[in-house]
């Protein structure tokens, strides 16, 4: 029964994605929507990404210094672990989990409200492929902007770590710099970006699916929004395991 329901849901998702990724009626209108979605989903998320990353970077650095650093450890260990955590997990996976809450609920509630207020029906009556017009720009917009968010997040996290070094005097900036530069593997940056592209697709497509397929009223829009966040988060966690194994 559960498998049957899951397969039905997955089938409906695939059909919707098939409709969403069809040729736009007007490239000019698509481009306009694409830019608008990049702004509303990506650019508008920069603030929260920077804020969270700065403080998490600072906290990771403090925790590493207080809990791992010892006379037996090399002095670069705090900086090194802070960099690895930020780059490999926080800026890609955890940041995407946070964005699943912010962006995912935004997408699901916007499309859900459009559905219940018949705006999607109005598009269909005009002969517009509503899925293509509404969903594709959201997916492409978020996928385009996500690598930038990941880079900003990593950079701000490291800035936060330096904040603890300079302001908090938790560790010396020289030790932190040494750790940040120690055994740096450029592939990890790419790994983080590749993972975030998958996660951006999951967040935008799953949330769009839940929002677009709402039936009923405002209560259902709320439920769809919750389901979108829960489902995106679970899928991000599952795919993180596979992607980490695959890309490491």
């Amino acid at each position: 029964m559960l498998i049957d329901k899951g397969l039905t849901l997955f089938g409906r998702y695939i059909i919707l994605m098939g409709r969403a990724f069809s040729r736009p009626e007007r490239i000019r209108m698509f481009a306009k929507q694409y830019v608008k979605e990049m702004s509303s989903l990506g650019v508008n998320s920069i603030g929260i990404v920077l804020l969270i990353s700065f403080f998490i970077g600072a906290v990771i650095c403090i925790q590493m210094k207080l809990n791992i650093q010892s006379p037996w450890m090399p002095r670069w260990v705090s900086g090194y672990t802070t960099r690895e955590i930020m780059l490999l997990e926080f800026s890609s996976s955890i940041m995407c989990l946070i964005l699943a809450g912010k962006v995912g609920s935004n997408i699901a509630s916007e499309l859900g409200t459009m559905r219940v207020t018949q705006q999607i029906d109005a598009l269909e009556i005009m002969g517009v492929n509503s899925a293509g017009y509404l969903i594709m720009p959201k997916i492409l917009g978020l996928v385009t902007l996500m690598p930038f968010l990941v880079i900003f997040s990593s950079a701000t996290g490291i800035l936060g770590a330096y904040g603890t070094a300079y302001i908090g005097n938790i560790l010396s900036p020289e030790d932190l710099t040494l750790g940040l530069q120690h055994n740096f593997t450029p592939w990890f940056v790419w790994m983080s970006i590749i993972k975030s592209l998958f996660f951006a697709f999951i967040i935008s497509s799953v949330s769009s699916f839940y929002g677009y397929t709402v039936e009923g009223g405002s209560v259902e829009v709320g439920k769809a929004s919750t389901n979108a966040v829960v489902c995106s988060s679970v899928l991000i966690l599952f795919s993180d395991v596979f992607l980490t194994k695959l890309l490491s």
Partner: protein
Amino acid sequence: MIEINHLYKSFGDKEVLKDISATFENGKTNLIIGQSGSGKTVLVKNLVGLLDPTSGEVLYDGRNFVLMDKNEKVAMRREMGMIFQSAALFDSLNVLENVMFPLDMFSSMNYRERMKRAQECLARVNLIDAEKKFPDEISGGMQKRVAIARAIALNPKYLFCDEPNSGLDPKTSLVIDELLHGITHEFNITTIINTHDMNSVMGIGEKIIYIYEGKKEWEGKSSDIMMSTNEKLTDFVFASDLLKKMKQNEMEKMRRNNS
């Protein structure tokens, strides 16, 4: 002209539309009336393709809409305009952008021409001053007028209205009715209005179809309603005491005139 032949629609075991056949002519305001839950909205949704009928035909000037493939239906829909019960304006766009939307999407006009056409449509519904406002900044009646302007932007051949007067005061309803009636005659559109507003029925109904429990119960003009002996229809149309008295007075007048 739109023709419906033996249209049925079921949801699971529940049969909502039962053998409905009707003809809606060009340049006339055709009204579908009936109680809430009688199947009016389902009928209109079947006509525009938002729902697929279980069986039957929907012919647009002889072209069977039910048998069309997806692309043909999309092309056909560009000849249709629809006004929804909730107006269904795009809330991220202002009034002018809402009216320009179908033009932006489907017309080959340049920006100035599109803007001019949208302003003409807004002028037709007396809303030229509100073009920069957003849907949530205007009243329900104004929203309906914007929806009418948007629906006529591409000069549709067929216009569908799902309860255009719901939630409006009688005076605003009258404005909307007059607009729809005027536009229908001006542009020779086949207009189908789904309503249970009796002022609309008596005011602009050139052809009326009464749906009762999913079946076509009665068909005629607004002037025929007074004389109709169909109990279900008269119970529905003259439901209030005021309307019952009005009907009695009208009948007495007619009797006096005849004698």
